[in-house]
């Protein structure tokens, strides 16, 4: 099954390396300039150029476009075009070799230091620090002074002074990788230290090395030019860009083109390398890969193909009708929510249950437009809050409702709270965003809220930073923040999944109590039937982006009608019934970009027949407030 889904996904999924790189205009321009220069430099022996070292005093300092000398001649009458091409060849070769030497030596130091840690790390990195503490040009001068001037010695000098740059970069990455589980796993597989370092870690560090090379090479060419300019690199008559610049300096005022031409070439070359290097980094760097370069807008795009009837239901505070949310990734459309209907009465707790990928979080995030665009969009349906369509409202109205009438509590309180502000300051901010209170009044209200969620000593805890609180305390702060503006609806997305069981019990009790006291409706998203059974009045089970069954919690848990619900309940171990056989569901949910026709669960369902695989199956009522999207629902007591 995985075979069918994995293979085509690669072609249609993330765009390829070259497409991404060329989509970046600046990088493409840099690459083009660089390519032209490199081709010219490589082809130097083949091009019909005069000897670059041939002097002709009679033709000295000819201006550009002089006959036979398109870029003129220098003070000794040598053809500048020819010297430029040959000089670029030398500069490129020196810059490239110096970079490679520095990359190999520096990466080796970084890899060993980062992997070994402890004393080895200290020793190596202090050595590197010492090289860094020395002004690089002085160090290069000292090396050249000892070894004598010459291109090769300049190359060594530049390579040496750039080793720290690689060593520090690579050490940092290695340090992180060396503590990863897969390294521990390799150790338990019997691999030697060298095997782990070069077989397991190096392949993961390679992109960072390549990125570092691409950003260093331009710098290296500049440094080579600098040393040659000072007369320490290329020796006459040999041309490189730095020495040409140095020779041009003497005649800068009488014949500016002699210095200008190599100067412009250095500029074009380094600029081309840097632009291409930046582009390469954006594509390759694992730290930027996870979409950090695409900036989602403040609200999910609404592009509805279908808008249902908007006649309000007076019994419902939140009424989601036919919600469709899609993600467009690499030209393919993933239907995360495919027509979801949910009704939430005042003061009611509705559990939204499903496995990862079932669309339960996307549904919850869609309501207030929190699904990131790009790539997400709301493609159909409506969400009525007190009878008003949220998807049709202007951005400003939605902003005013967020955190006020509709509040969210997320799974991970540590990433929800700002790490650099005290929890009190964050509460004050949440209060003042919606209520015209003075700072002092808001602070008093913040303390009151912290007391409400049973945080001991609220005045003192308000001054604490999130990291100073335990996970359970942090989640209470998040609940307090959600309550700050007396919400009508609280959307809690797996609020206890990251918490320990004793802490979970307290947060559940807290949410339950606040719901009863304040009559707020709660949409509680979870994958845990135990949690559902303790706090939800009704439950909706989602599979592959649709609600497959809905009804009162007890009725559904005791006698599920949809085969998926039944099998999902059957595969959860229950405390106190250890000998119950765990019935795993065979297969996997369908991918959201290739949903099957008919019932999405049919391929895994033991009761499926031919009619399950064709046409739309409606969520049909069964009495007792229950509804099921199945042609062959289970009778009470029947096993799937």
């Amino acid at each position, binding site marked *: 099954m*995985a*075979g069918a889904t*994995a293979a085509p996904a690669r072609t249609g999924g993330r765009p390829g390396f070259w497409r991404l790189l060329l989509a970046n205009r600046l990088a493409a321009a840099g690459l083009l300039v660089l390519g032209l220069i490199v081709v010219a430099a490589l082809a130097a022996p083949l091009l019909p150029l005069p000897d670059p070292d041939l002097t002709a005093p009679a033709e000295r300092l000819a201006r550009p476009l002089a006959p036979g000398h398109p870029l003129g001649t220098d003070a000794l009458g040598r053809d500048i075009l020819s010297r430029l091409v040959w000089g670029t060849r030398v500069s490129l070769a020196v810059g490239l070799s110096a970079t490679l030497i520095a990359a190999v030596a520096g990466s080796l130091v970084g890899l060993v230091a980062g992997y070994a840690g402890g004393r080895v790390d200290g020793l190596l990195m202090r050595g590197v620090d010492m090289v860094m503490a020395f002004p690089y040009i002085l160090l290069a001068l000292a090396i050249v002074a000892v070894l004598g001037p010459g291109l090769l010695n300049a190359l060594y000098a530049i390579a040496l002074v750039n080793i720290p740059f690689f060593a520090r970069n690579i050490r940092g990455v290695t340090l992180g990788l060396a503590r*990863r*589980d*897969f390294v*521990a*796993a*390799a*150790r*338990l*597989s*019997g*691999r*030697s230290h060298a*095997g782990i370092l070069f*077989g*397991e870690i190096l*392949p*993961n560090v390679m992109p960072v090395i390549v990125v570092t090379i691409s950003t260093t090479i331009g710098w290296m060419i500049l440094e080579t030019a600098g040393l040659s300019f000072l007369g320490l690199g290329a020796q006459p008559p040999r041309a490189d860009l730095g020495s040409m610049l140095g020779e041009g300096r003497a005649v800068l005022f009488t014949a500016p083109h002699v210095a200008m031409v190599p100067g412009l070439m250095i500029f074009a070359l380094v600029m081309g390398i840097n632009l291409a290097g930046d582009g390469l980094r954006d594509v390759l760097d694992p730290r930027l890969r996870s979409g950090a370069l695409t900036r989602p807008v403040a609200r999910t795009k609404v592009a509805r193909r279908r808008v249902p009837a908007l006649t309000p239901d007076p019994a419902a505070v939140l009424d989601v009708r036919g919600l469709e949310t899609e993600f467009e990734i690499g030209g393919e459309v993933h239907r995360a929510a495919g027509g979801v209907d949910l009704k939430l009465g005042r003061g009611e707790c509705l559990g939204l249950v499903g*496995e*990862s990928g079932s669309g339960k979080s996307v549904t919850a995030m869609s309501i207030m437009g929190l699904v990131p665009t790009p790539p997400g969009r709301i493609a159909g349906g409506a969400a009525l809050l007190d009878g008003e369509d949220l998807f049709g409202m202007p951005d400003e109205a939605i902003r005013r409702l967020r955190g006020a009438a509709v509040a969210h509590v997320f799974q991970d309180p540590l990433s929800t709270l700002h790490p650099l502000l005290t929890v009190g300051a964050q509460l004050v901010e949440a209060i003042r965003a919606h209520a015209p209170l003075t700072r002092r009044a808001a602070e008093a209200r913040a303390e009151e809220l912290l007391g409400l969620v049973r945080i001991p000593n609220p005045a003192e805890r308000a001054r604490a930073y999130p990291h100073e609180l*335990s*996970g*359970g*305390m942090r989640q209470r702060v998040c609940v307090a923040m959600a309550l700050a503006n007396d919400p009508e609806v609280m959307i809690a997305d797996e609020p206890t999944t990251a918490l*320990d*069981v*004793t*802490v*979970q*019990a*307290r947060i*559940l*009790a807290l949410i*339950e109590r606040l719901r009863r006291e304040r009559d707020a409706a709660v949409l509680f998203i979870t*994958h*845990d*039937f*135990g*949690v559902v*059974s*303790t*706090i939800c009045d009704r439950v909706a089970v989602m599979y592959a982006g649709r609600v497959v069954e809905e009804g009162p919690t*007890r009725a559904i*848990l005791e006698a599920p009608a949809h085969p998926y619900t039944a099998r*999902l309940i059957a*595969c*959860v*171990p*229950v*405390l*106190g019934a*250890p*000998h*119950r056989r*765990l019935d*795993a*569901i065979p297969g*996997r949910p369908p991918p959201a970009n290739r949903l099957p026709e008919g019932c999405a669960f049919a391929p895994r369902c033991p009761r499926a027949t031919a009619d399950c695989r064709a046409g739309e199956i409606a969520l049909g009522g069964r009495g007792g407030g229950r509804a099921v999207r199945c042609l062959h629902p289970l009778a009470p007591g029947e096993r799937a």
Partner: protein
Amino acid sequence: MSGAAFLDIDRLERVFGGGRTLFGRARPGVHAVREVTLDLRRGETLGIVGESGCGKSTLARMIVGLDRPTAGRITLDGRDLVAEARRDPRALARRIQYVFQDPVASLNPRRTIRAILEAPLRHLRGLDGAARGRRLADLMEAVNLAPEHLDRYPHEFSGGQAQRIGIARALAAEPDLIVLDEPVSALDVSVQAQVLNILDGLRERFGLTYVFISHDLAVIESVSDRVAVMYFGHLVEIGRVADVFARPRHPYTRLLLASVPAPGRAVAPPEEGEAELPDPYHPPPGCPFHARCPRRSDICLTAFPPRDSAPGRADHLSACYHPEGDD
């Protein structure tokens, strides 16, 4: 402990940090595992439960040799494991293997499944090419994966498949003991059942011994023969799973069991007041649970309670001055 013990852990300690600075000032240290003593019989599954920060993962990593104890002994069939891990880590890896909590993070993203599974066969079992090929096919069959998956990369697999690859890698070393550190916590419930069933089948087929770590009491109850409950680095209760879960002796075990949400149970929190773990840098004297304990008395502040067996059940031990069931 009994002479028949297969794995014997004796007063194991692990302190992170600590020691002294260059100028002789004491550095703060965290006592992650404190005087843990337990034993394991061949072929049984020992569950270890506890909440985050209780030291269960540190204990697991010390058993497989990924971490070294500060004090205490671990012996396997009478041989000192800590010395063995230092002298010949491969010999240890042939006997004890480990399955990680995060299945995807435990697979190198840049190596194929074949390369990942071949490593233990080559380095630990010294198999040649043809023999490795045969073993790979067996291993994939054992964890119920198609052999054509071998040439794929880890990112192409779902969490459940990745965890089965992690289990296959542990099996490849042909160990006697596998330490499973929260092996199903990162998985969806339907996948969790698949993996639990596979683990159960493998245990019977290869005569494996498991140390199964989890925070999920229902999972522990369904897989374990015996269970050990940890709190704040201490082992507070150990015994047959039926005894411990039906008649817990330590108030913390009682609290854990009462906190599991279940149908028909009230939402009222099983404890009131400030239910925080003690500060690990400044551990309280005596029993670390006393601040949360409904049965506490003055004696609880004096020293950590000694381990006592339940009346009539010599293998059900708890470290509490006022165990439940005595009154």
